[in-house]
């Protein structure tokens, strides 16, 4: 039962932390609850589909299907976050001002919501499909305490995601969107680095010469804090040069894209 709860907790935590950040980043935008729920629901459905087709996905592309699929899902999420960050660099300040002026949710159009709903859906899909496969195996093996384990794991993961969300909401509105945007950029960079790891695992991409450093003596990525930082800012105890290139490349690309979009917008105005 405890082993089940622990595994479910780790997977749910990953999705819950991402949903926590996304939930905070859409603070004050009218109708966000519906979009986030729709994202979660779509992700759950997708997770079942992926779990059901896991054998076929793994066998595709001469056995590299799983890695290509995971890398594709991760990079799609990076693209959505990049688009959102660029959008916020234009509208974030205005959004915060209007929110402070009216003191309640404002209509910002559906763009920031559907982009991040897709990010939520992809996170739930990734983690959910692993949980589904694990539980399928457990149920087939006749494990006891399945329901209790799942319940405990989901409750624990969700609680930490909500705690993160509540913590982020304490940030003053003046700096709020700049900070959540920064957090989203680092989160996206971590996802991109994970994509590089999957591609190297399938030998579709080099590692750039093995492991760069080992900081696991300081903070292991198997620990709760290490795992949390891995999800939020892409912490890796043993990264490769290629992962670092993907990480730094994503940060640079997203920051530059946001600046360029903001400048063009100002010139047009």
């Amino acid at each position: 039962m405890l082993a089940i709860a622990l595994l479910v907790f780790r997977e749910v935590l990953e999705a819950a932390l991402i949903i926590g950040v996304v939930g905070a980043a859409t603070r004050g935008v009218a109708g966000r609850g519906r979009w986030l729920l729709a994202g979660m629901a779509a992700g759950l459905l997708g997770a079942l589909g992926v779990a059901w087709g896991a054998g076929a996905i793994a066998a595709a592309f001469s056995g590299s299907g799983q890695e290509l699929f995971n890398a594709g899902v991760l990079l799609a999420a990076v693209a959505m976050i990049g688009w959102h960050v660029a959008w916020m660099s234009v509208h974030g300040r205005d959004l915060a001002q209007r929110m402070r002026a009216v003191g309640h949710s404002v209509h910002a159009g559906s763009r920031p919501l559907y982009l991040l709903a897709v990010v939520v859906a992809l996170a739930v899909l990734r983690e959910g499909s692993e949980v589904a496969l694990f539980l399928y195996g457990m149920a087939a093996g006749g494990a006891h305490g399945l329901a209790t384990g799942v319940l405990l794991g989901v409750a624990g993961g969700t609680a930490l995601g909500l705690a993160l969300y509540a913590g982020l909401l304490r940030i003053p509105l003046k700096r709020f969107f700049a900070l959540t945007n920064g957090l989203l950029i680092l989160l996206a960079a971590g996802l991109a680095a994970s994509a590089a790891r999957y591609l190297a695992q399938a030998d579709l991409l080099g590692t750039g010469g093995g492991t760069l450093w080992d900081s696991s003596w300081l903070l292991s990525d198997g620990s709760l804090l290490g795992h949390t930082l891995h999800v939020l800012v892409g912490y890796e105890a043993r990264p490769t040069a290629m992962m670092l290139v993907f990480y730094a490349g994503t940060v640079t690309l997203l920051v530059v894209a946001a600046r360029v979009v903001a400048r063009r917008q100002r010139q047009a105005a």
Partner: protein
Amino acid sequence: MHRPIRIAFLALALGLSTIATAFAADLPSVELNIRQHRFEPARVTIPAGRKVLLVVHNRDATPEEFESNEFNREKVIMGGRSARIYVGPLKAGSYRFYGEFHADSAQGVLVVEE
């Protein structure tokens, strides 16, 4: 997705996997099995400083997730299927791996030697 984009993606993926398999031909490789949620052998040795192909056969009926924080790999292996996992290059030392779905029994060590 638009048709040309889809074809471009497929071509890219196919091209990449062809290149990958061509290069994989002379890689050192090691095979291991998962039986009754245990690795057999539970200790495998590979050369240091080289990329190595691990072929993991899941002889159980249920899925397993091959995972290692220490050499940074994770792959779900369905019941009765095999998986190819490229590892390293790694420095000499011991690196633990485990089956995340049955971590209480599925534990192994990758020994990397000069």
